[in-house]
């Protein structure tokens, strides 16, 4: 299903939850909506589901207006599946009944599925690896199993759009990594479009075809995971997604001279977004910076804090009156003097 959002806005009283959102989602595309809590991402998702009505603008699905200021196709009449943050399993139904519910209930379940209900249920349970638990009740399942049931229920009637509202946030860290793989596999096998809401940039970067970064009800940037991570266009995206340091300095065409470095240091940055250029900033991720023995002529700083992380160290480096986060495998001690550079290989995208 292809989806177009045109100038969509939503206000609750005097509070603006969404403002002029424009977004196109292609059939079969996996789109992640990424942002901190309160950025409007859940409102946007609930609008795609049909639980909320936009106060302005309109939403089209396959060309047809499904929501606008005066129209609203309710969720039960849209062909969608949805996975909720806290699973939303019905405590009085077993797993088999959960998967059967949308197949029987949805008026638009394809005839092929309706006619072969049992084999469809078996097929879906197989896909999420729960065939052997079909008679269990929700309270007899672990968190990961519950989320698999929720996914199975959401895809059972073969929706053309699958909505996921922070589906991994109620699971523990290890399980989250495994479930990412499962969601990717569900996406590959069903081929339906997925809109995935999350505040975890790792989830968005690892699974999505495209990421929509939101802040305070507005879209900050839309792009592929690489685009978003390597070429942020706003301060917020740089800090929220790539955890970048915003180095102050000044631009000389495509060359950046960090503040307090004399002019001996120059970083190339043809690809850095216009916003940073006009504000005298250079976004640089902690892993882009390299630490070395202090030497004359470069940027020299002092280690203000160090945290051992296993395969590397997280440093806070104070240099040229600014504090930067740097990730480096080389061990230094607190108060050591170090030089800070960006190696040539890290400038290739810039």
């Amino acid at each position, binding site marked *: 299903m292809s989806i177009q959002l045109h100038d969509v806005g939503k206000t609750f009283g005097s509070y603006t939850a969404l403002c002029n959102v424009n977004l196109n989602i292609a059939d079969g595309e996996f789109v992640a909506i990424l942002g901190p809590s309160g950025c409007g991402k859940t409102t946007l998702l609930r609008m795609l589901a049909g639980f909320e009505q936009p106060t302005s603008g309109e939403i089209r699905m396959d060309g047809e207006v499904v929501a606008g200021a005066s129209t609203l196709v309710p969720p039960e009449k849209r062909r969608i599946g949805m996975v909720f943050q806290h699973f939303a399993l019905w405590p009085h139904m077993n797993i088999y009944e959960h998967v059967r519910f949308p197949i029987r209930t949805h008026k638009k379940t394809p005839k092929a599925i309706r006619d072969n209900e049992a084999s469809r249920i078996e097929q879906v349970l197989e896909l999420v690896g729960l065939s052997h638990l079909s008679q269990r009740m929700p309270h007899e399942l672990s968190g990961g199993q519950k989320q698999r049931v929720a996914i199975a229920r959401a895809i059972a009637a073969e929706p053309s759009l699958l909505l996921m509202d922070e589906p991994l946030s109620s699971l523990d860290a290890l399980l989250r990594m495994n479930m990412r793989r499962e969601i990717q596999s569900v996406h590959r096998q069903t081929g*339906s479009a997925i809109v995935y809401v999350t505040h975890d940039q790792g989830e968005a970067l690892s699974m999505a075809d495209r990421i929509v970064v939101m802040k305070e009800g507005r879209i900050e940037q839309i792009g592929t995971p690489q685009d978003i991570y390597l070429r942020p266009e706003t301060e917020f995206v740089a800090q929220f997604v790539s955890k970048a340091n915003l180095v102050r300095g000044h631009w000389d065409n495509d060359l950046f001279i960090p503040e307090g470095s004399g002019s001996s240091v120059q970083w190339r940055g043809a690809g850095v977004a216009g916003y940073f250029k006009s504000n005298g900033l250079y976004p640089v991720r902690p892993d882009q910076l390299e630490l070395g023995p202090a030497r004359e002529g470069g940027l020299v700083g002092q280690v203000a804090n160090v945290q051992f992380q296993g395969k590397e160290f997280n440093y806070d480096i104070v240099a040229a009156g600014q504090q930067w986060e740097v990730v480096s495998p080389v061990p230094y001690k607190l108060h050591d003097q170090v030089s800070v550079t960006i190696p040539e290989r890290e400038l290739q995208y810039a």
Partner: protein
Amino acid sequence: MATSDTSVLETGMKKGGGTFPRSLLSASSLGRYGLLAFGAAATFFFFVLPIAKLLLLSVQNEQGFTLSYYFELFRQERFWKVLRHTFVIVLGSTALSMALGIVAAWLMAYTDLKHKKLLNLLIVLVFVLPSYVLTLSWSSFMGTQGLMASFLQLFDAGAKPWSMYSAGGIIFVMGIHHFPLVYLFTLNVLKKIPRDLEWAAKTGGAGKLKTIARVTLPLSLPGITAGGLLVFLASLDNFGIPAFLGTPVNISVLSTLIYEEIIGFGPSAFARGASLSVLLGVIAIAGTLLQWFTVRKSKATETGRMDDEPRYALGRARAWVGGAMWGVLILITIVPLLSMITLSLRKSYGGKLNWSTMTLDNYRYVLFDNPVIWQAIKNSLVLSSITLVVCLVIGTLFAFYRVRKPSKLNKLAELAISIPYTLPGIVFALSMILVWMEPVPGWNPGIYGTTTILLIAYVCRFLILQIRSGVTAFMQIDASMEEAARVSGAGPWTRWQAILLPLLLPGIVGGGLLVFLTALTELTVSALLYSSGTQTIGVTIFGFEQAGKTLYSTALSSLIVLFIFVGAGLLQLLQKWTARRGGNN
């Protein structure tokens, strides 16, 4: 898989995927406003108007507005005597309830007593029994023919137990009847106090007693106060206990005084009753507001999580503390109940009781020989069944809107609906008479004196109980349960039938059973509203007691006890059944 026949899918989409045209939407919103207006009007008519009429009558005579009824009251010696009695009885019984309730709650919440479930059931039973059944149990237990007398006569042939027909007796029965309220409130608060707060106090160097005094008590105080105020209100409202135990020895409280005024008729009986009711109502509302504020305050401190694990090991004391608790509870409920039941099995009040003289005659009389009693039982059953159904439907729907679509308007409506239950029953009953004699000037629907007025009164008074249990039940169902059903294609009907009702059932059936049993055994409101042919069970027992026919009143009361046990058993079964279905996860 899904990609195999998307073309079929898409054409299906286009055919079926219609949108609501604008006109349809506005038509449905017109309907919604109509419904809203109707609801608001009905709420005003049934819940607010009666109180307005009552207020008006108390300040009006033929000449116009006047406070003369109040001044007349204040001049009467009797009024002040009743007021004194009321306060002594209400405060005394509240103090007793609080003492019993707090101790029981602390033991049940924090110690490692055994069989807590059973103990809890036994405690709640004291409150579930209608107050007049408990009263009859105690008066037969302590009566000259009762078990206590036989027990005392083992030591001294002339010994007579303490008479229950006294202010002390009223205080005692009221105190034990209401202590479960304090118990439940305090238990809830105590269990929600995080135990790490106590640990923190102990690591800070506070001993056991100091921890209780400086941490547990201050944190539970709002809850305890709220429970205490609730008991204060319940005691003020109670009619059965003072009517059974006080009236025969000329001890009146405000609720029984209003009853006597109205029943005694005489000139301006209604107006005097109304002004007394307004006074009683004002005290009750002041108490309710105070209670409401303390509950709000206690909500601010609670963390929400119940901690059921014991915090204090009683050690060697466990056996005797547990034993004492069982002993006290059995003594205050089971023994008096048995005493009442054995009394109902006697041939005559003075007769000796043994296996050969035991008889079911009284039951035969009550159930089969006297058509008036049978009529009363039928009335009560029909009334409480209809009340149950009406409350179940309206209350559940209202609770749904209250929880899912909260608004100022439905909050206000809930407040209005809670008025009849907040007010003392006798006050509410009088307001019902006033409003239904002539609801709109010039229109007398002629329902005063029929079962219809009882039905309206029951529904109005008990609707809030059903709403509260409905609200609790809905709060436990996350909105995402319904949303998951909606995206699965379920329309409103399927959502209710397949998701909401099965999940709500245990909660609303519990509430419904409470409404049913309360209506079935209702006394206060019925006592003012019944007329010949529309007696209820409560009124009939009251009548027997006033006429001195103790054997019949105890037989009928024993039947009620049986009924309550059956009802509680059914509820237990239902909960077991839904638990097995995974209803509570």
